[in-house]
């Protein structure tokens, strides 16, 4: 009895070795595609990627297995995507922090080491204050900041992280000096603003939207190209004379050298997905602005982000790493 069990167990352990033995080339995709998310379950990228992945499953007829490989603010997972086999069966997600990582981390992914597939959303940064604060308009806030340089406390999501980049850019273009207070993430930064511990934040719209709607926070401006459909009364920074668009994006990438045909198949499918009204309304409800750009247009968006960071670091001398 015992010997029989032992033999069975050894067999069970050995079987998987043969499992992936034979592979034939057919029409792509013919087997499961792994989607690596370098950020955690329930995070911004996770929330928007999963519904898109399950839409792709139905469209392309294979499983899209979502794996969260967290660590190093996305560095670990992004580098994992870079180093994956470029057979089209492993893809990943990217955001602006993949680009900004090189200013912060000693080991970092390079967006030029991957093939862009498509962009799916954009998240505009905003200028938000507490509803109890005296500032009713952007002009009043900026006038106060100019009269009292360095006194306004701006909650960001960590030095070098996205909200810090928005705050630094906002300060640079409006010519105001602020006291940048780093928090662990968007939620913590917004909490500090709700509690009145800081004066303003440039944390993007999805995280402040419901507090603005419920009347506890006041959004003075949004840093997108056009006004947001949910907040038609909030002006853009552009309208106020500051020619700047700030915000994050999220999209799909594949390891360098992935067959262009396969990339096109994925890109087209994602494009169809973003046409689906159900997906669009889901993304809008969750606070994102659906924005599909194909692999070529996405390259321009990434290049813009790179230029913006270069400008901040080289022209304005903003240091992401303080030693």
């Amino acid at each position, binding site marked *: 009895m015992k010997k029989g069990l032992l033999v069975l167990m050894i067999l069970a352990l050995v079987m998987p070795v043969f499992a992936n033995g034979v592979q034939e080339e057919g029409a792509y995709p013919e087997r499961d595609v792994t989607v690596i998310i370098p950020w955690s*379950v329930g995070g911004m990228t996770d929330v928007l990627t999963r519904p898109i992945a399950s839409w792709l499953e139905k469209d392309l007829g294979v499983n899209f297995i979502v794996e969260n490989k*967290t660590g190093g603010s996305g560095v*670990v997972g992004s580098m994992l995507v870079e180093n994956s086999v470029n057979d089209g069966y492993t893809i990943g997600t990217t955001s602006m922090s993949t680009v900004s990582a090189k200013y912060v981390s000693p080991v970092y992914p390079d967006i030029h080491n991957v093939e862009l597939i498509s962009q799916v959303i954009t998240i505009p940064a905003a200028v938000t204050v507490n509803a109890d604060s005296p500032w009713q308009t952007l002009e009043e806030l900026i006038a106060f900041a100019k009269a009292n340089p360095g006194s306004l406390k701006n909650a960001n999501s960590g030095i070098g992280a996205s909200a810090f980049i928005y705050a630094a850019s906002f300060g640079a273009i409006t010519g105001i000096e602020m006291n940048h207070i780093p928090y*662990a993430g968007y939620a913590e930064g917004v909490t500090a603003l709700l509690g009145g511990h800081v004066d303003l934040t440039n944390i993007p719209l999805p995280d402040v939207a419901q507090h603005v709607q419920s009347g*506890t926070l006041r959004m003075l401006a949004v840093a997108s190209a056009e006004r947001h459909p949910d907040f038609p009364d909030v002006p853009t920074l552009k309208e106020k004379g500051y020619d700047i668009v700030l915000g994050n994006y999220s999209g799909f990438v594949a390891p360098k050298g992935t067959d262009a045909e396969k990339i096109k198949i994925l890109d087209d499918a994602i494009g169809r997905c973003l046409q689906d009204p159900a997906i669009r309304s889901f993304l809008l409800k969750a606070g994102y602005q659906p924005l599909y750009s194909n692999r070529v247009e996405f390259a321009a968006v990434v290049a813009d982000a790179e230029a913006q960071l270069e400008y901040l670091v080289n022209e304005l001398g903003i240091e992401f790493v303080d030693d």
Partner: protein
Amino acid sequence: MSFDLYLEGLSYFANPIMFIASFLGVLVGIVFGALPGLTATMTIAVFIPFTFGLDPVISFAFLLGLYTGAVYGGSISAILINIPGTPSAIATSLDGYPLCQKGRAGEAIGISTVSSAFGGFFSVLVLCVAAPLIANVALKFSAEEYVGITLIGLSIIAVISPGSIVKGLIGGILGLVLGTVGLDPITGFPRMIFGRAELLDGIDSIPVMIGVYGLAEMFSQISKNDFKTVVSQKLSKVIPSGKDIKRLMPTIFRSSVIGTLIGAIPAAGGSIASLVAYGQEKRFGKRRHLLGTGIIDGVAAPEAANNASTGGALIPMMTLGIPGDPMTAVLMGGLIIQGLRPGPILFQQQMPFVSSIFISLLLSVVFMLVIGLAGARIFSRLITIRKNYLIPAILVFCLVGSYAINNSLFDVGVLIIAGIVGFLLKQVNFSVAPIILGMILGPLFETNLRRSLMLSGGDWSTFVTRPFSLAFLIIVVLVLVGPLLLQLVRKQKTACEDEEDENGGV
């Protein structure tokens, strides 16, 4: 908040699937929570993708069951094999494991179940009645107050170190040092990462915890080379007697209040709550001198607190859309994926759904009580399995669990190193709890200390001019020098009494 809307939430429960979902959630949660290395956060993260296709109300009945079950389940392995299944069960192992070694594992699990259920029940009540109120108080907590809370947590290291306080402090400092690895939380400067991307976020405390508790325990069992003897377990007294419960009621109540409040403060969570509850028991409990030797008071306090923190953590999540701990952060992601963003808007506009969440949580507390008491006998029988079967099985769970946290082999390396170090420390009678506490609390303390000083413009007086912060600092001082003062007072008192006696004698 009108009562009618609460009742509307009740109507969801006409569907029997709600009960099945909640029951399954609790059951799976207990099993996962009890397995070393599978933390409550991970359990929820693993199962959230399965709930996407379900109705949000049903999926939340299941997820809240998981949440409650996993936080409770962590205590089972802490009691049976001295491996906290989740960080919030660290304090439970301090008295739970000694109880098990005395053959009273069933009783310890019984007490843990009843205390957890009371803590959970209490926090749901608070959540229903006073959620918006408490959330607004919690908002007033800025970096200064977090400094106070983490200091209370750290000061408890001195209290819970069995035997030598010096060894406890050495362990605590070792933990603090380990906690500094990774990107500097304020400036982003990489510290002690040796060029490894895996270290950017610091050393994950979970594999270290599984290593110094689980692996080290298994190593020392193996080195004893005694696989045949098992501690026989008394299984008669599983359901705690009314007398015990009555005696422990003040402890359980105090701990439930502590757990709910600390749970409601964003970023604090169950591990600090259970620790503070254990610490106050050690300071003010009736049987404090016996704490650590294996008494049920030491199980009741942390268990009531960590389950009370579950309802507490839902307070800021439901009312403000701010997760109270890592677990609720994952839960919140689950809600957002369902198209429901928790926060003031959801709270105002979707009251029936919100109340269904409260009722689900209550239901899961009931199921936890039932499954826990019914299963206590079976759980404690597990420990009577012969060790040459038990040890390899636990080792496998430790390895799998630490890999699964970030799907990273690096963490397995951390686990093995921590296991070897933990084993060596055990040989010199070192308590490992302070190391883990230092690792968890150190980064919180450092970040908030520096953030407070940035907010105040470098002015240290900010810590004493803010009332809450001052109150917390006073508590820290009391925890540290309280016993000395008490001794001093007692000495003088007895001295006076002696004098009086002498005078009386004359």
